[in-house]
């Protein structure tokens, strides 16, 4: 199954890059390779490796099916919607696929909020929410988040003088 999906990824990505690059010249004056020459070769290699992976999966699956037909195995379960969803979930994150999905969504929301409420506040809220979702007690989550924010402020802003995104209404913290 992994080979099938990897093959599909290769073929679809290769086609995408080929289509996106169609307006670029492959060769320029005197026949020298142009800007699209290397991406075109890379896309073809990508599609070819994708096709070979899919072929490998299909030939292996055919051999396994032949073996199953010749075997005495019974009690094969029919695929259900539940088992299909579980396999997708298993593919996404194994046992903790829900944790992974929630974490990614939280991370995306955190990055989105940085521009509006500033880096320090959005980081504090992100850490606090994620820690409490995943079982850390509220007081402990506040303490760990606060310590981390103070450390980041002292190290990056005071010592390294990095300019970090500030809230829309401006920052109250000194530099």
């Amino acid at each position, binding site marked *: 199954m992994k080979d099938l999906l990897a093959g599909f*990824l290769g073929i679809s990505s290769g086609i995408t890059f080929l289509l996106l690059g169609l307006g670029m010249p492959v060769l320029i004056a005197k026949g020298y390779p142009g800007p699209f020459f290397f991406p075109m070769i890379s896309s073809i290699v990508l599609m070819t*490796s994708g096709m070979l992976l899919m072929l490998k999966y299909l030939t292996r699956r055919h051999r396994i099916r032949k073996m199953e037909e010749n075997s005495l195995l019974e009690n094969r379960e029919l695929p259900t919607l539940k088992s299909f969803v579980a396999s997708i979930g298993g593919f996404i994150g194994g046992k903790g696929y829900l944790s992974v999905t929630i974490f990614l969504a939280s991370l995306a929301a955190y990055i989105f909020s940085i521009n509006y409420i500033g880096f320090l506040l959005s980081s504090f809220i992100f850490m606090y929410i994620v820690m409490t979702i995943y079982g*850390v007690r509220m007081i402990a989550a506040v303490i760990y988040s606060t310590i981390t924010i103070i450390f980041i402020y002292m190290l990056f802003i005071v010592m390294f003088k990095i300019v970090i*995104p500030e809230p829309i209404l401006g920052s109250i913290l000194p530099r």
Partner: protein
Amino acid sequence: MIFQPHIIVTMFLAALLGVFVGSMPGLTATMATALLIPFTYFMDPLAGLSMIIAMSSVAIFSGDIPAVLLRIPGTPASAALTIDAYYLARRKPLSTLGVDAFCCMLGGLFGTSILIFTAPILADFVTGFSSAEYFWLTLWGLSMAIIISAEDPLKGVLGVAIGLLISSIGLDPVYGYPRYTLGIPDLLSGISFIPALIGFFAIPQLLWLISRPREKYAIKFESNERVFGLIGEVLKKYKLVILRSAGIGTFTGALPGAGADIAAWTSYGVAKRLSRKPDEYGKGSLEGVVAATSANNAAIPGAWIPLLVFGIPGDSITAIVLGALLVHGLRPGPTLFQEQGILVTALFMAFVIANIMILPIGYAAIRLSSHILRVPNNILAPVIAVFCVIGAYAVNNNLFDIWLMLLFGIMGYFMERLGIPIPPIVLAIILGPMVEFNFITTLIKSDLNPIMFFSRPIAACLAVITITTWVLPFILARLRSLR
């Protein structure tokens, strides 16, 4: 130059970070390097690079701590010794770790001595390289990464092709033509290197951690055991094993795409084959532990040989270090040795100091390991995520880079689940522009005559080596199937 107080203190603090990162299963030295790189922008080059050297050297040793005590490798480099070390640790956990620390130090010092003696010689040799030689060298680097890193070479090729296409986003290196920018001004300068690295290496690890949120580790051992009690026996019985393994580790580390983990496995396999007691391997062989640990730390300086001489990273850590070198205006190659000779010498000394540090810091880490391993993943993951965000942002002060980091992180996570290895992708992102630039430059110089790629003797040799690297796996597979 290296003995300035601020550099020694920085190296010491980085070594402590290396202890933490290495000891925690789920955190890797590569991930920690990716997170440390943005810090180096605000330091002088020597302090920044010494910090990474110290952190990576100690982290590779510290990954052995949970391997020995819990049978869980802290870093991939510790996997080779896990089973034997765990068996030994049932009777003598602290002295097993003491042997580990000692052999790591010796292996690292051996690799450093090879680095010191060979790198300047190779740098002189490389002075005469033209675009044709660099083309074959970088192509060979990518080929090795496919063969070494990927269980399935097809997936390795797929990864390299993806990396090459990612590297082509932005302005063309030869003509300056905008490619795949999709009308987004932030993409005109191409994919920012450090956010991509943090995304590929750090985010998948974070997702692995958060899928086991409440996991933490508890260990107990006797406090009266002597940590370095077995050193005498090791030196008496296994000196040749240490020397051989350190050599294997250094050579393996110098191969692009091969890192400390492959060095450790290769050395373990060779030691088993040559051992008088091969049956003990897998059941508590001290010789096996010595072989693996000597090799994995020797690979760290080994990986810096191709990095400093050719600008081709030997492993994932040096792939990230290359970014740091370029940001500081230090271009690897012969000119680095000519123009920044003092800096290069100071870096060699940093390796010596970092490997000597393994012993005292390792001793403290061994004694305190029960406390280090208690931090649960549900606290660790969000804190590290915040550091990833600020690390990605600090490069260009651009929020777009953080979104890129997240995108590559998700891509990296799914690719790992599909069995597509990450190191070839990253190596292709780094080497892609070099391959393209040298290829097109050679064609332009030769007026489209392909013979130019083979006409110079060194280019011809490199071409033969590269083509052999492509063809050899198929030949070997065919020979195996005929038997």
